């Protein structure tokens, strides 16, 4: 049986749901080994949090360099693991760090690379949504150990016997909040969602840049994306339009974001959101 390695993904010292998604894709036709990169002494705890579902082996590499030398040290370690173990493929989470590590490992191991896959088939054909989500592409690596980065929240993870939680819902605010994110945050809280923001909102200083959804800010593809007071500039749409379900609240019925909406409410977010928050809270209690 072939073997696929995944790079275990962590938020702080917590294993993310993305790790389970990578494992689910890898397990379609292979046994799955998770690589854990850790500070000296921290490997065992991290490894214990990773081993679940389809992951049969965990390979721990400990070094001080991961904290001080970032992606360069991570890529060096992974390239050595690949040279020693010759897996059939390596899957990594497709965020900024993951893509950089993948790029360097591809160079170091003379391997082809595919980024931002939304699915990986048993024969390692990767599916990508390109050009702002307008085109579906299937591609395959033709040289070396295929290195594929997979977008978080794209693959239905096998979460058996794990306790992973992560925001599958993002509620974002834009210019329409006028700087008051309380209604957006309240609704996000009721759904257990993460809060996002448009570039207009982060540039105005209303919300931290780290929450920006869009071009170089961040690409998200949650199960549910709720855009509040966001008109839908092209960068923002590129950053969120692969979300599974999209709901929109905007005063302007002509806002381009309505084109993407599965459900749209033309109205004032300061009226709609509090009512919705109350409704969600009432249903949950």
């Amino acid at each position: 049986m072939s073997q696929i390695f995944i790079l275990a993904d962590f938020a702080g010292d917590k294993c993310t749901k993305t790790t389970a998604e990578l494992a689910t894709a890898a397990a379609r036709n292979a046994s799955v080994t998770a690589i854990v990169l850790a500070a000296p002494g921290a490997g065992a705890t991290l490894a214990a949090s990773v081993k679940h579902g389809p992951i049969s082996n965990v390979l721990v590499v400990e070094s001080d360099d991961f904290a001080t030398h970032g992606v360069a040290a991570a890529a060096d370690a992974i390239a050595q693991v690949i040279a020693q173990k010759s897996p059939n493929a390596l899957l990594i989470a497709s965020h900024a760090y993951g893509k950089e590590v993948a790029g360097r490992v591809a160079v170091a191991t003379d391997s082809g690379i595919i980024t931002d896959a939304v699915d990986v088939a048993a024969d390692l054909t990767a599916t990508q949504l390109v050009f702002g989500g307008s085109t579906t592409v299937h591609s395959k690596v033709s040289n070396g150990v295929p290195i594929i980065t997979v977008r978080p929240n794209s693959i239905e993870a096998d979460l058996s016997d794990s306790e992973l939680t992560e925001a599958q819902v993002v509620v974002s605010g834009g210019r329409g909040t006028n700087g008051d994110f309380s209604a957006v945050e309240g609704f996000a809280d009721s759904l257990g969602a993460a809060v996002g923001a448009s570039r207009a909102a982060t540039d105005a200083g209303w919300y931290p840049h780290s929450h920006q959804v869009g071009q170089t800010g961040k690409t998200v593809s949650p199960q549910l994306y709720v855009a509040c007071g966001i008109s839908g500039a092209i960068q923002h749409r590129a950053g969120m339009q692969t979300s599974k379900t999209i709901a929109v609240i905007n005063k302007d019925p002509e806002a381009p974001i309505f084109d993407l909406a599965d459900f749209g409410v033309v109205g004032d977010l300061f009226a709609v959101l509090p009512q919705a928050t109350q409704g969600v809270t009432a249903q949950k209690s």
Partner: protein
Amino acid sequence: MRIAVCVKQVPDSWAEKKMVNGVLDREGVDAVLNDLDEYAVEEALRIVEAHGGNEEGGANSVTIVSMGPERATEAIRKALSMGANDAILVSDAALAGSDALATSKVLAEVIKNGGFDLVICGTESTDARMSVVPAMLAQRLGWAQLTFASSVSVDPAANTVSITRTTEAGVDSINAKFPAVISVVEKINEPRYPSFKGIMSAKKKTIDSRDLATVGVSAESAWSLVADSAPRPPRAAGVKVTDEGNGGNDLVKFLTEKKFI
């Protein structure tokens, strides 16, 4: 201080892009300087301007480095009109359809032999959006990697560079000795518009066009190949309601039906 800025000519962000024979069709669309590279050009200019400027023959220079068809000179002229000194364009028919690995190999070879202290890139190109070339360059050159910078400060006397990077966890501060590869995010600065004088003088600046033999690398076919591609059906039109006092409840009803609550 000699700075190289890597730029790419890409289809206009607003142009409708499509795949032909497994690669992006670049023929039928308007081509522009990748938006995100303008921030890299601007940052390089600001760095040299903060340390004595980039007068011809002086200690500082900004060189634009690009790979692409001859037509890419249009995008390069824009970067030159912003104030860069000169440019190197690697253009060779054998490079058509190159992937990020091949691109980084060619760029690294040019940079390695160019006597540069720093390389500055945008975070990604708006066409492929892979965001891996800066990291690949650092790997190939064996230089420090300072990517996704939201600020850059350089100490030419000490040959050191520091950046800050905003992440979900907070703000990282990263320091390195020259030489280093930097990528900058779009929040770092506001790129200048080329002045009339800049546009005129750019016409006289040198674009050193090189083929693969001159660079000294061989062409590599792409190591990832597109099997097929298809336009995605547009999202089915959704439901749109107007809030007349019940919009929030309507939303909750929809979310309940979809099992989000």
